[in-house]
């Protein structure tokens, strides 16, 4: 049996579900394309017309809620630090450690800018880079692009579960 936690790129949705506790309708990362554990990562989310939030936001104008884009980026941040703890645990029989239990909480948003609407059919490319850490807390610079154009940028503070 292969018990290695070495993460191969890309990380597909079935593996993401082992790393995050989020489930429908709140798992907002489809695939991780680049990941440097504990440092930075790039992930994508395909936005479809079948997203449950489009029923209400808005019935007459379909716009992905900015807070959910921020949540998607926070989930990417969680993947970055969960990958780090998986890497650290690599020496052990790690296949039954529930890594997704370590996903923590949001602490704050800073200077979040939502520059363009995100609509059905868009592919969000999200990037996150940890810029500072103190204990379990991290400050992370985040970006989201659609078709090579930046649509969201800002800073997210998170805490791992302690």
């Amino acid at each position: 049996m292969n018990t290695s936690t070495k993460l191969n790129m890309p990380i597909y949705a079935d593996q993401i579900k082992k790393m995050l506790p989020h489930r429908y309708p709140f798992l907002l990362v489809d695939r991780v394309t680049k990941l440097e554990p504990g440092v930075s990562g790039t992930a994508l989310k395909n936005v479809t017309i079948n997203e449950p939030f489009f029923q209400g936001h808005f019935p007459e104008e379909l716009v992905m809620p900015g807070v959910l884009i921020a949540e998607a980026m926070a989930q990417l941040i969680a993947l970055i630090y969960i990958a780090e703890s998986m890497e650290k645990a690599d020496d052990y029989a790690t296949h039954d450690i529930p890594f997704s239990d370590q996903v923590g909480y949001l602490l704050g948003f800073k200077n979040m800018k939502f520059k363009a609407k995100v609509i059905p059919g868009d592919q969000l490319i999200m990037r996150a880079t940890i810029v500072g850490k103190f204990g379990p807390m991290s400050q992370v610079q985040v970006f989201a692009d659609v078709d090579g154009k930046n649509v969201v940028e800002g800073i997210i503070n998170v805490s791992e579960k302690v």
Partner: protein
Amino acid sequence: MSTFTNSKENLLDQVGARQQLCREVKEMIIEQLSLGIQPEWIADDQPLFGRGLELDSIDTLEITIGLQDRFDCMLTDDNMEVLGSVNKIADFIESQR
């Protein structure tokens, strides 16, 4: 006598540099936490957390980032007492130089 004058000038320089450093620390705290107050309103030995400036644990992250960006100092959480007051932060910055 000239050596005495020199050392007195040195001492004054040191005091001036320390006051300037404390002012920069206060400006950094105000900027990082968007406090919207004047640096003079913070005393050098005033407690920053709990009573005093009433900062909380989330603010420690912002101050750590400020120390990193503005003073090139890395602070870890086994060094929590550094964040006790402006003077303690200034001591820490000086010890890192």
